[in-house]
């Protein structure tokens, strides 16, 4: 399984370059133009990440979350799921930067290669900021009644979270 993961990136790069060769694309020029776009994205990201790291780290340090986690822990132990994944699962649909800040603190505490680190990596990678997407897309075309959109989006996220736990447990243990 690890081999597959390791092959995906090089194979995609190879295919993209080969196709570009056949189509006589200016490979290097286009690469440079694309890479340049990252400056704008990073500049846009920085203030959000800064704000969320401050908020999340203060919140985590305060011990408030420990009280909540301790209360639900028995429930999670029954289904054999680490409680540490709870905060990121709750925050992920609301804010991308906040969940990234949480992921950062999980990596600091448990390490990226721990089972918790891997599950949360996959949760972060397989779910979206549903609230943001709904606000953005429906807001801009003037939809007032969203009907079952939020339920459907959040349920899709929930399936993503459950799938992350199951898949990581299957592949890495």
């Amino acid at each position, binding site marked *: 399984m690890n081999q597959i993961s390791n092959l995906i990136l090089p194979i995609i790069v190879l295919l993209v370059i080969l196709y570009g060769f056949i189509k006589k694309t200016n490979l290097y020029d286009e690469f440079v133009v694309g890479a340049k776009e990252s400056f704008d994205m990073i500049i846009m990201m920085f203030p959000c990440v800064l704000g969320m790291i401050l908020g999340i780290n203060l919140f985590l340090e305060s011990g408030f979350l420990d009280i909540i986690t301790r209360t639900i822990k028995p429930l999670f132990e029954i289904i054999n799921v680490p409680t540490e994944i709870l905060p990121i699962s709750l925050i992920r649909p609301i804010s991308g930067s906040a969940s990234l800040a949480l992921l950062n603190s999980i990596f600091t505490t448990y390490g990226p290669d721990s089972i918790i680190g891997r599950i949360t990596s996959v949760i972060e990678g397989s779910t979206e900021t549903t609230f943001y997407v709904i606000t953005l897309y429906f807001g801009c075309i003037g939809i007032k009644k969203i009907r079952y959109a939020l339920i459907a*989006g959040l349920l899709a996220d929930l399936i993503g979270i459950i799938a992350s736990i199951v898949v990581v447990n299957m592949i890495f243990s």
Partner: protein
Amino acid sequence: MVNKIWGSFIVIGIIFCIMNNKIEDMNIIILESAKTSIDMIIKIFPVMALWLGIMNIAKASGLISKMARGLSPLLTKIFPEIPKGHESLSYISSNIIANIFGLGNAATPFGLKAMESLQTINKKKEVASRSMITFLVINTSCVTIIPTTIISLRMMHGSANPNDIIFSCFLATFISLIGGLIIDFFLARSSKK
């Protein structure tokens, strides 16, 4: 929503830190968060630049639009309400392909275009149509092949193999996409009655 949550994080954080007698730690955290965030940005930046560079080749060579066209037959099945050959289908497929390759910046404009186009065939302009919600569900499951941000964050924390979650991510998003579409199908059917 984000405003209220962020505010509560900080208010709860500071009050509980004082209550739990963690005043010194709190001072360190306030100042350290600036450093942590710039560390994160600096580590994410090069991986993102690399990926956007590679993907720009795929865009310029026409690979992305070719793949988007290949998706159309499948889409007519997922979106039964959209008339065949309607322009919204091409925006939807471009958005999906851009998302798959981690081109968030390119995906959003396509997504907005797709929504505008779906609005032109929507009967009640203030109510979300079935197709709009299905498109939204596809977006929230967000199938991605290379989650660049997560990989670079794993690199920064010294992972032995930051890429080893790629396959798991792909599998998990695929499951959530299929599950999301099934849920959407049944919710659409029950809301009609």
